[in-house]
């Protein structure tokens, strides 16, 4: 096992510096690489000079300079991509709002609770689940409100389901509005409607509660569009 001595290493450093590398970290990394390559070549019987020459050549003409530039450009590109991603998200959000403004279907238009009586305690999106203690996607919006607060249906429709899941939504109502939209009201205490009943926007369908998997009194509200949960707060027009 051949190991380069200090003066030989100094020679390698000089050659690398000639290549126009400015970052110390990259210089150190490339130095080790070149030394390994030289040692392996010398072990096969080549002279130090010949091995050094080959090692530097293997980086290509001004290769080290190019490597450094490429690393720098990569980093710059990543920064730009991050910015682009952010702005394209805002454009997408604008488009969604635009589509919503143009679209005149039976879509949810109001908040299910009276303005000023609730506080949004958990939004739509990734969050730490308060009971399961793991990152989960929250598919609706939680509105903290005292038990027994009237819950309004947010668009005209038909009561499609009234259910009670103790380990999940607790007492909850599913309302079908049109082919496109459904809304879900969960963690309720009392139902005020029956399955199949027609409802008008603003009708009281239930009283809020703390049933099911819940840590405090709140209404869990979901908007389902074409079978997919969307952010209910996009539909809070008031």
């Amino acid at each position, binding site marked *: 096992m051949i190991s380069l001595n200090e003066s030989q290493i100094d020679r390698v450093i000089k050659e690398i510096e000639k290549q126009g590398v400015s970052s110390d*970290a*990259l210089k*150190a990394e490339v130095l*080790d690489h070149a030394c*390994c390559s030289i040692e392996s070549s010398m072990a096969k019987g080549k002279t130090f000079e010949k091995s050094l020459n080959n090692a530097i050549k293997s980086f*290509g003409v001004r290769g080290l300079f190019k490597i450094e530039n490429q*690393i720098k450009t*990569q*980093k710059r590109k990543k920064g730009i991509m991050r910015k682009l991603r952010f702005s394209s998200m805002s454009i997408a959000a604008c488009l969604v709002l635009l589509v919503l403004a143009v679209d005149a279907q039976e879509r949810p238009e109001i908040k299910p609770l009276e303005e000023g009586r609730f506080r949004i305690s958990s939004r739509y999106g990734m969050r730490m689940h308060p009971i399961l203690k793991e990152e989960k996607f929250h598919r609706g919006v939680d509105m903290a409100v005292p038990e027994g607060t009237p819950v309004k249906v947010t668009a005209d429709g038909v009561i499609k389901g009234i259910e009670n899941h103790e380990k999940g939504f607790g007492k909850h109502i599913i309302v079908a509005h049109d082919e496109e939209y459904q809304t879900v009201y969960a963690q309720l205490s009392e139902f005020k409607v029956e399955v199949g009943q027609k409802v008008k926007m603003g009708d009281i369908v239930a009283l809020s509660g703390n049933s099911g998997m819940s840590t405090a009194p709140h209404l869990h509200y979901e908007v389902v569009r074409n079978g997919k949960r969307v952010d209910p707060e996009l539909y809070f027009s008031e």
Partner: protein
Amino acid sequence: MIPNFLMYICPMYSKELLKGTLKTIILNLLSDNGKMYGYEITQKVKEISDGKLLLTEGALYPSLHGLVADGLLVTETVNIGKRVRKYYTLTKHGNVTATEKVNEFSDFVTTMQLILSPKLKTQI
């Protein structure tokens, strides 16, 4: 001029064929061998591929630094006298990505085999 990232290609394979496999190669090597340094990676690839695949420095280092910037690898340096050896290891995220990339690629290879020799398909 050929861009640097395409220069790890040995005449054995065309650059079109190998473009896009470099990250998979690096991630998989690190997943199999734990921590490795740059030179070691080039030698390992040469050894495993029987010299058919040669990673050049011009392709390897930009790729390694890119993977670090992406949070897939972390580095650790060890001083050896006058020299500093920089080791790369997979992060948790890197481990997951390595598995994904390898699975994706083997799936791709299977699909390619089906496409290139449809007879196999009819036999199954």
